[in-house]
Each structure stands twice: as C-alpha cells, then as structure tokens.
C-alpha cells in the first residue's frame, strides 16, 4: 500500500498519489483503483485520506459560506451580486429590509446600488440553481469603510492558519478588523491607514508564499519589524 510522494510535496494533475487502502480526498480522483491528483498543489496524507491542497483555484459556492460581493444589477425583486464565482448570486429584499417588501413603496436602488459591496452568507445553492444570499445576520450587510483585497480562494484557509493562528496574529499586530470572504475577497478595516496597509502586505505575502514552511514566524517578524517605523512616522 504505497504512497508515492512526501507530504507537502508539489504535485501536478495526473500524478499517481497512492495505491491500495487509501481514500481519495480533495482534488484527487480514482481510476482503476489507484488515486491520482487532479490539480496543481501540495499533497497531504490525513490518516487514510489523500488530499491535494490546490495552489491556485476559483471559488465554487457552498451553503453557509461567508462571502464578500459586489452589486452588479438592481432588479424589480432583488439584487444580482457578483461573488467572484462562475455563478451570479441573488439577494432578496425581504432579507435586507427586515420587513415585508412592498414593490410599490420600496425603491431598491436606495438600499443597495450598483457597485456597493456587501458581506453576505450563502443560504442555498446546488448544481441546478444559482446561489442565494442573505444579510439578515449580525455582522453581515453593506460595507461602508475599509480596504478590499482579492486573493486566490484556495489560500483563504492558509490565511486563517491552524485554528485561526495566522489571522489572530495579524489582527493583534496591526490592530485591524479582518473579514475573510471564502470567495477570496478580504476586507480590512483598521483605525489607521498604516495598520491597514501592513495587514494588506502581510496577506499578499501569505498568498504568494503559502506553500513554504515557517511562514507564520516570518510574517510575525515582518509585522514586528515594520511596526516601530510606523510609530516614528507618526511622531514626526
């Protein structure tokens, strides 16, 4: 029952990963009872399960995901939202208004207009239907301030880190609030522009170096090193 790669080694589509008593996990497939990789990524063996963590990808909606999207169209009975996925999402007015929607009275473009950014949650999606969003939960809704950053959606878990270690570290070091949309869009809101900028640079670097070891330490070092310099600038 051999496996053919070391954990964390880079594999390409079509690479033979394991034979025998293994289970095909993410980004793998089975053909003739052996497991192959289907994407460019890093191999991981989780007990008997073989996973490939993709290095580049796109977002496919899943129910319950927190996403950040842009309003692209205001219709008669709802908004069309671009959530950086192959499918466009739909948001219904009753979710936003928190009262019954009256088409004669309510003007939807006054609530959310084209170009507005929202934090939302996916409440329904399957193969044959486009995703539906909701903002009727605390923390969701229109974004009024902060900076937006787009990264490869497959790297969001790396930005979060093990049990959130990476993201809590960045939040503490920069004093920013960070919302990670699982569709690869990140919202950073901080008290100072410098703090926001530092968090932005850190997340960009994580995206670029996600497949290297000792990354959390390097990011911490980088943030700590840049911190005193910012305070000096403020004093000037």
């Amino acid at each position: 029952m051999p496996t053919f790669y070391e954990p964390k080694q880079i594999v390409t589509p079509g690479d033979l990963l394991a034979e025998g008593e293994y289970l095909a996990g993410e980004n793998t497939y089975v053909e003739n009872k052996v497991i192959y990789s289907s994407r460019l990524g890093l191999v991981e063996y989780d007990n008997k399960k073989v996973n490939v963590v993709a290095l580049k990808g796109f977002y496919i909606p899943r129910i319950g995901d927190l996403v950040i999207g842009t309003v692209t169209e205001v219709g008669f009975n709802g908004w069309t939202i671009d959530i950086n996925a192959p499918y466009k999402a739909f948001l219904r007015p009753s979710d936003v208004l928190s009262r019954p929607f009256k088409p004669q009275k309510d003007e939807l473009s006054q609530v959310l207009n084209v170009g507005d950014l929202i934090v939302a949650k996916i409440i329904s999606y399957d193969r044959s239907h486009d995703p539906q969003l909701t903002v009727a939960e605390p923390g969701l809704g229109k974004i009024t301030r902060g900076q937006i950053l787009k990264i490869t959606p497959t790297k969001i878990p790396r930005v979060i880190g093990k049990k959130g270690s990476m993201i809590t570290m960045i939040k503490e070091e920069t004093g920013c609030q960070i919302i990670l949309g699982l569709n690869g869009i990140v919202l950073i809101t901080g008290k100072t522009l410098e703090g926001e900028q530092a968090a932005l640079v850190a997340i960009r670097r994580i995206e670029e170096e996600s497949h290297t070891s000792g990354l959390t330490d390097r990011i911490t070092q980088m943030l700590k090193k840049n911190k005193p310099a910012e305070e000096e600038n403020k004093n000037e």
Partner: protein
Amino acid sequence: MNEKPEKLIDKKGLRLDGRKPDELRPVKLEVGVIPNADGSAYIEQGKNRILAGVYGPREVHPKHLALQDRAVLKCRYHMAPFSVQERKSPAPSRREIEISKVIRESLEPSVFTEYYPRTMIDVFIEVLQADGGTRCASITAASLALADAGIPLKDLVVACAAGKADDTIVLDLMDEEDKLGKADVPVALMPSLNGITLLQMDGKLTHDEFETAVNMAIEGCKKIYPMQKEALKAKYVGIKEEAEE
C-alpha cells in the same frame, strides 16, 4: 528559404536541421505569462511560438449554449497574420476552425467538466510563429494553461507528431517535412493514464509504418510530459527556495 530542398534526409541519415529521425526539436515551456488570464502558457518548439490563455469557468454567453450537466469547453486556435511567410488573413480560415475543434476534442477528455455545470471554459490559442506541428504544440500549451488556471484535470495532455519524410519515419515534423513529406500522424496523449485523445493521419503509410509512427509519436509525448510538469512547478519551487533561505 523558398527553394525546395532535394532531399529531406541526407546520406548520413540526418534531417534538414541536423536532427536524427527520432529526435525532438528543442522545447521551452513557460506558465503564467498572461496576468489578465486565469491561466496561461507559452511554448517554443523549434521555431514554433505559441501562446495559450484560459478563462473560466465563467458564466456562459450567450446563455442558451449552457449545458445543464457539465461545463462547455470553448477553443479558439488562431494564427497571427505575421506567423507565416505569406501574410495570413486574420479572419478564421476553414483550417483554423477545424483545428479549434480538433484541439477541443483532444482536451475535453482530460477536463472534469461535470464538476461545473452551466459554466464555460474558454481556451484561446494564438500562434505567433508557425513552423509545422502547431496543432500539437498548441495542445501541449493549452493543457498546461488549463492546469495553471486551477481547473481539475485527469492528466496533462501532451501532443507530438510523427511522419514520413522521404522514406524514413521521423519524429516531430518541421515545416518543410510537413509540406514535402509523405505523411503526418499527430498524436495527443494523457501519459499517466495511457490514453490517446487525438490520432490523425494525412498522407499514405503502410500498416507497419503507421504503427512505428504512432509508437514514435507516443515516445515523443513522453519526453515532453516531464518538461510540462517542471514548467508548472517552476514558479512555486522558485518562491519556496527564496523564502526558506
């Protein structure tokens, strides 16, 4: 350049550019060359220079082309007006439309289209300089671009041609051999699964010659395959070494 060579194979058994019959032209592959595309690749094979860009999966336009059970794969093979000796009209010719179809059909078995219903994957192939065997080089580059876009694939598709120049079976035909030679057999292969996704022939070959040609082309594909893998990994390996120093 425009004079016809008398013989394609000289007395020593070497070809016009000095290659042995079973030798490939030098191949150079690069990935991620178009920042605006979701995935891209560039191939140089001999004097061939080809760019491939992949977009998607994305929404289908026009909408009625969408399939309910799988993604639509769209392919466009196009030759730049300056890619050949005599200026080529930029409008898609009969030949280009056919090659687009052939490339699409040779890539489709490798893509997990059923994962993304109601979407479309666009593949654009632009031949900047042509020197025979562009369809094969295009397939090699397009498959690499698909992998670079992060689209799940069963395997990378590699293509290579073999043919008959004078009376010898030769690998990886160049322009003169393609035009003056007696036959051309392009083959596309998914090496890990040992599956042929494209097999064409023009010209005449005997039963035995055909078999040698196909086997030779498969061997050629298997030589390009590791280069494809290296090209895909190169970007990330570089960053890794730099960061961990």
